[in-house]
C-alpha cells in the first residue's frame, strides 16, 4: 500500500457526487418544466386542430369551389355589358357626327327656301301693282296676289321654324358629341379595366379557391405532422428517465469505487486488485458518462425540435385557413361592388344620353311636317303658275306683265322643286338617323343588362355562402390567434428549460474531468493497475444495478478498450412482446 494512495483526495468523490446530484436535479427540473409546457402545448394544439377542422368542414360544406363558375359567368357578362355599351356609344357618336353634317346641309337648303319666300313676296308685290294697273280686268289676278302673299308668309314661318330647330339641334348635337367624345375613351378604358381586372381577379380567386380546396389535405397533413412531433416528444421525454437511471448508476458505481479505494488504504493484502477494480470502475463510469452525454443531447434536441415544429405548424398553416377564406370573400365582394357601380354608371349615362337625344324625335316630327309642307308648296306653286298662265292668255296683250310674273312663279316653282328635293333627301336621312339612334339607345335599356343581372344574382348567392364560411372562419381564426399567442408565450418556457438542459453538458464534462484526474492519480500511485483487474468480477460488481442494455454495452466496450458506437436497433426501445 503506498502513501500516495492514502493521499488520494476523497473530495474528488464528493465533488463528482455533488455534480451528479446537480445533474439529476437539473434534468428533473428541466424535464418537469418541459413536460408541463408540452401538456399545455398539446392541449392548445388540440384546440387549434378542432377549430381548423371546423373551418375546413365549413369550407367543404359551403361548397366554396362551386362559386368559381358563377364568377366566371359574371366576368363574361360584365365584359359583354361594357362592350355592348361601347359599341352603342360609338354608333351614336358616328350617327350624331353624320347628322351634324346633314343639319348643315339642311341649314343651307332652308336658307335657299327663305330666299324663295322673299322672291315670292316680291312677285306678290308685282302682282298687286299689276292688278291695280289692270283695274276691273285684273280682278282675276287678285286671287293670285292673295295666294302668293299667304304662300310667302307660310314659307317664311315654316323655314323660320325649321331654321330655329335645326340650329337648336345643331347645338344639342355638339353637346352630345362632346359628351360622347369624353365617354367613349372612358368606356374603352373601362372595358380594358374590366377585362384586365376581372381576369386578374379571376386568376387570384382561382388560385385562392384552389388553395382553399387543398386545405382539407393540408389540414390532414398538418395534423399528421403534429401527431408525429408529439410522438417524438413522448419518446424523447422517456429518454430522460433512462438518463436518470444511468446517472444514478454512476453514483452507485462511485460508491463502490470509493469503498474499493478505501480498502486499498486499509488492507495489507489485495490492495493492487482493489486499485485495479477502482481504475476499471473509473474507466467504465467515464464511458457511461460519455454515453449519457450523447443520450441527453439526443433527447434534449429531439424535444426542442419537436416542440418547435408543433409551434411552427400550429402557428402558420392552420392559422392561415381563416384569413384565406376571408381574402377570397373580400376579393369577390369588391369585384361585385365594382360591377354594381359600373352598371349604375352606365344606366345614368344612358339616361343622360337619352334626354340629350330627346330633341331628335321632336326634330323628326318637325322634319316630317316640313317635308309635307314643301310638297304642298310645290303643288300650290305649280297650280298658281298654271292659273296665272291661263288667266293671262284670256287677257291677251294686256296681261303681258302678268305673264312675266307667271313665268317668275314658274321659275320659283322649278327652283323650289329642286331645293325641296335636296331638303327632302337630307330630311329623310335625318329621319333614318333618328331611327338608328333610337335602336342603339335600346342597348342602354334594362333588357341590355339582363345577362349581367342574372350573373350578378348567381354570384351573390355564391358570395353569401362564401361570406358564411368567411364569417365562421373569422371567428374561429380569432380564437386560433389567441391560442397561438398563448403558445408563443409558452415557447419562452420551453426555451428556458432547454437552456437548462444545455447547461448539463458542461457539468457532465466536469464529472468526467474529475474522474479522469482520479484515474490518472491512481495510475501514478499503482503503476500497471490497468492489467490487474478481474474482468468477471468487475462486470458483476458494476452491472448488478444496470437496468438498460446501453449500460451493459458501454461497460463491455470500456472493458474491451473499444469505443461505444451506439445501441443496436433491438435495444433502442419500442420493442413489444406479448406472452
Amino acid at each position, binding site marked *: 500500500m503506498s502513501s500516495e494512495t492514502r493521499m488520494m483526495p476523497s473530495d474528488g468523490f464528493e465533488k463528482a457526487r455533488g455534480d451528479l446530484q446537480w445533474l439529476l436535479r437539473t434534468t428533473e427540473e428541466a424535464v418537469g418544466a418541459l413536460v408541463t409546457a408540452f401538456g399545455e402545448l398539446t392541449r392548445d394544439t388540440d384546440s387549434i386542430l378542432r377549430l381548423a377542422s371546423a373551418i375546413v368542414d365549413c369550407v367543404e360544406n359551403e361548397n366554396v369551389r362551386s362559386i368559381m363558375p358563377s364568377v366566371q359567368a359574371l366576368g363574361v357578362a360584365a365584359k359583354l355589358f361594357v362592350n355592348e355599351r361601347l359599341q352603342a356609344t360609338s354608333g351614336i357618336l358616328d350617327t350624331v357626327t353624320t347628322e351634324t353634317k346633314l343639319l348643315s346641309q339642311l341649314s343651307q337648303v332652308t336658307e335657299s327656301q327663305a330666299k324663295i319666300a322673299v322672291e315670292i313676296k316680291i312677285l306678290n308685290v308685282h302682282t298687286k301693282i299689276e292688278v291695280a294697273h289692270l283695274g276691273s280686268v285684273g280682278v282675276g289676278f287678285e286671287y293670285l296676289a292673295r295666294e302668293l302673299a299667304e304662300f310667302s308668309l307660310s314659307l317664311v314661318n315654316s323655314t323660320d321654324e325649321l331654321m330655329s330647330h335645326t340650329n337648336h339641334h345643331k347645338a344639342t348635337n355638339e353637346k352630345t358629341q362632346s359628351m360622347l367624345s369624353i365617354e367613349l375613351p372612358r368606356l374603352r378604358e373601362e372595358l380594358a379595366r374590366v377585362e384586365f381586372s376581372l381576369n386578374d381577379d379571376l386568376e387570384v380567386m382561382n388560385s385562392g379557391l384552389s388553395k382553399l380546396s387543398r386545405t382539407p389535405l393540408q389540414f390532414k397533413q398538418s395534423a399528421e405532422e403534429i401527431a408525429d412531433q408529439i410522438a417524438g416528444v413522448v*419518446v424523447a421525454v422517456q429518454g430522460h428517465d433512462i438518463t436518470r437511471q444511468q446517472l444514478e448508476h454512476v453514483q452507485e458505481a462511485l460508491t463502490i469505487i470509493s469503498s474499493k479505494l478505501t480498502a486499498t488504504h486499509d488492507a495489507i493484502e489485495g490492495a493492487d486488485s482493489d486499485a485495479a477494480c477502482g481504475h476499471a470502475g473509473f474507466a467504465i463510469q467515464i464511458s457511461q458518462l460519455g454515453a449519457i452525454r450523447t443520450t441527453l443531447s439526443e433527447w434534449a434536441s429531439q424535444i426542442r425540435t419537436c416542440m418547435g415544429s408543433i409551434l411552427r405548424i400550429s402557428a402558420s398553416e392552420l392559422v392561415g385557413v381563416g384569413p384565406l377564406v376571408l381574402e377570397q370573400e373580400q376579393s369577390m365582394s369588391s369585384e361585385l361592388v365594382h360591377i354594381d357601380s359600373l352598371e349604375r354608371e352606365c344606366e345614368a349615362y344612358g339616361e343622360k344620353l337619352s334626354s340629350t337625344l330627346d330633341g331628335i324625335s321632336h326634330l323628326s316630327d318637325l322634319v316630317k311636317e316640313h317635308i309635307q309642307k314643301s310638297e304642298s308648296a310645290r303643288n300650290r306653286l305649280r297650280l298658281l303658275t298654271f292659273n296665272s298662265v291661263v288667266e293671262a292668255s284670256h287677257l291677251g296683250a294686256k296681261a303681258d306683265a302678268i305673264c312675266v310674273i307667271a313665268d317668275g312663279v314658274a321659275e320659283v316653282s322649278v327652283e323650289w322643286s329642286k331645293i325641296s328635293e335636296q331638303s327632302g333627301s337630307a330630311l329623310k336621312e335625318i329621319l333614318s338617323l333618328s331611327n338608328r339612334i333610337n335602336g342603339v339607345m335600346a342597348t342602354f335599356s334594362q333588357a341590355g343588362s339582363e345577362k349581367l343581372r342574372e350573373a350578378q344574382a348567381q354570384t351573390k348567392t355564391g358570395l353569401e355562402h362564401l361570406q358564411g364560411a368567411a364569417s365562421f372562419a373569422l371567428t374561429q381564426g380569432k380564437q386560433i390567434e389567441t391560442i397561438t399567442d398563448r403558445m408563443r408565450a409558452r415557447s419562452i418556457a420551453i426555451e428556458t428549460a432547454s437552456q437548462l438542459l444545455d447547461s448539463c453538458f458542461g457539468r457532465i464534462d466536469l464529472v468526467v474531468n474529475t474522474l479522469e484526474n482520479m484515474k490518472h492519480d491512481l495510475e501514478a500511485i499503482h503503476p500497471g493497475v490497468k492489467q490487474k483487474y478481474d474482468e468477471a468480477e468487475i462486470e458483476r460488481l458494476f452491472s448488478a444495478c444496470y437496468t438498460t442494455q446501453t449500460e451493459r454495452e458501454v461497460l463491455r466496450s470500456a472493458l474491451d478498450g473499444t469505443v461505444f458506437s451506439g445501441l443496436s436497433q433491438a435495444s433502442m426501445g419500442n420493442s413489444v412482446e406479448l406472452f
Partner: protein
Amino acid sequence: MKRILTVDDSGSVRQMVCFTLQKAGYEVAEAVDGKDGIDKAGSGKFDLIITDLNMPNVDGIQLITAVRKLPGYSFVPILMLSTESQAEKKDAGRKAGATGWIVKPFNADQLVAVVQKLVK
C-alpha cells in the same frame, strides 16, 4: 370508459403514458411505485395495468405477483414497461404473470395498439 393503472417511479414516464392513453380515450390512474400500485389496484378496478420493472419499495415483478392474488385480477392484462430488454428479466415477468413486455422508450401509436388489443 376503460380504466388503466400506470405504475412508474418516473413522473415524466407516468405523464407520457397518461397523455398517450388519455388521448386514445382511456381513463388513466397513476401510482408512484410498486407499493402504491398494489394499494391502488386493491382499492379500485382496472382493465389493464402498465408497470415499470425497477422501482423503489416494491418492484414490478413483486407488484405483478401481489396483484395477481387480488380478487378480480387473475385475468386483467399487466404490461411491463421497462428499459430492460434482457430475456431472463422478461422470463421472470412472464412467470410472475405479466401479459406482455414493452421496452422503453415506447412509441405512442404502438402502446395504444397493444392496449387496444388487450382491452376490448
